[in-house]
């Protein structure tokens, strides 16, 4: 989404700021998370509005956004495909899943598909260790994932909202 698109839908931002400005700076992370959910990433404009709305210095708001792995200050795919490659999932065969995702989406770790549908990340433990390998697409967590399922999972995720 372009900066303009984010600025234009400021009704959402107004709602977010109304909810969190009563607690001032303490509302920064929740506001950033909600804006990230709404807009897909945090543009300069969005971050500046949030910072000003909560009385946080611009540089510090940027420093907070840049600290957290799930907040993005640059455009990313509509859905993030997060493959766990931590110890238990590794023992369950996550390497094959990583390879399958790379083959399916034709991108490497950290990259975004040309159509903007997916960004692919390798992530640490997602907390579903008894059912690895585990893949998270958007907010949905998929357990016991096989290589054969990757095609289907990504197609369904693309079609879903």
């Amino acid at each position, binding site marked *: 989404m372009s900066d303009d698109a984010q600025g234009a839908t400021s009704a959402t931002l107004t709602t977010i700021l109304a909810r969190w400005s009563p607690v001032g700076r303490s509302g920064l*992370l929740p506001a950033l998370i909600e804006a990230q959910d709404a807009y897909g990433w945090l543009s300069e404009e969005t971050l500046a509005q949030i910072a000003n709305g909560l009385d946080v210095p611009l540089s510090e708001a940027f420093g907070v956004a840049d600290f957290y792995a799930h907040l993005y200050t640059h455009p990313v795919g509509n859905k993030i495909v997060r493959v766990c490659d931590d110890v238990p999932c590794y023992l369950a065969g996550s390497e094959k899943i990583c390879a399958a995702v790379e083959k399916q989406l034709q991108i490497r770790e950290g990259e975004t598909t040309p159509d903007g549908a997916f960004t692919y990340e390798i992530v640490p433990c997602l907390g579903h260790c008894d059912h690895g390998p585990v893949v998270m697409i958007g907010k949905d967590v998929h357990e016991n994932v096989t290589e054969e399922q990757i095609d289907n999972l990504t197609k369904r995720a693309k079609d879903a909202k």
Partner: protein
Amino acid sequence: METKLITTNLGVANPESIDDYIARGGYRALRQVTSEMSSPQMIETLKAAGLIGRGGAAFPTALKYELAVKAEVTRPWPAPLTVPALYRRSSAFVICNADESETGTFKDRLLMEGDPFRILEGMAIAAFITGATNGFIYLRGEYALAYERLSRAIDAARARGFLGERILRDEGSRSLTPSLDFDVEIRRGAGAYICGEETALFESIEGRRGEPRVKPPFPTDAGLFRRPTVINNVETFANIPFIALKGAEAYRQYGTAKSPGSRVVCVSGHVKRPGAYEIAMGMPLRQVIDELAGGLRDGRRLQAVLIGGAAGVFLRPDEIDVPLDFQSLAAVGATFGSGAIMVMDDTADLGGVLRRLARFFKDESCGKCFPCQLGTQRQYEIIRDPERFRIASGLLHELGATMRDASLCGLGQTASSAILSALDKGLMKI
């Protein structure tokens, strides 16, 4: 085989029904506490029960609450303007650390998804003890279902008067004791393991980068917004209603003298039945693996067990008769940590495991203190390409010792423990 004290509702009760929770005995503890007990009495009960924190630090819970109560008396009142107005009234804060991000750990997720009211009840009792009016659940961002279940549970609890003002105080009551006012807010994380460290968690809630603070001061003296704070793990809060209702002696029927009660362990890796199991403290690790988790896959041999999480320690096959309680594990140089038990049979590539452990700490280091910010990066480089470094093993040991001794927080202090234990026990050579 399993000892069910706190997981009795999992998979049986409807987690979205407060009536189910009540029908199965829920909120009787809170009712009893608010109507019949005093804060000092509850602290004594927790002390007698010997409840120890279940997040990994293993701190005695009663002592934590006692220190917070003492601090509230000595801290200047009212709270300064640096505390947001909405929270300024709270003389202390009760925080549930639901950031569960330790490798191999999923028990808190199951408790939150399957029995959210139990956690709210435990927090309310903690609020009663400490006089807190505001509580927070810091929940890792990836746990979307837990967020839904907890949000709904909070709404339902409010609607029924188990959260909010004058909890369980009847209309027209003439009780002279102050009523319990307590409400809970969920604060989500955004992908930072370090925010499970208590002081980094406070920084995160306060709207800053999750960079830990030095201790002292400890949270009970100066925690969230620099006010007295009790912060406990999800499982710890889940233990409190049982102890409050049934009493210390009933709790001590389970477990060992120094590690009473139960523990929810998370078994994963090369076993037939990975999963979360609530056991009595003191059950031997071998029994957990062979009987509860179904043992190894057919035809396989045990290579190693990683216990405690990424911040834990490797055990050799000849070491798995160790009883699972805090003291027995400490005696063999291991740690219970988050309760994670990762089983590796002979097909496991330990080199790949160590690389992932090293990568984990490098990726999650906050970047504040030098030993960890630089050391976790170097540890990863050495593990990945040991031949690039002179006397890699010696260098790794010295580096690990420095991180352990001089890092500012627990992440740096434990970043090398699993890796060095694998090398020292001959499970891997570099």
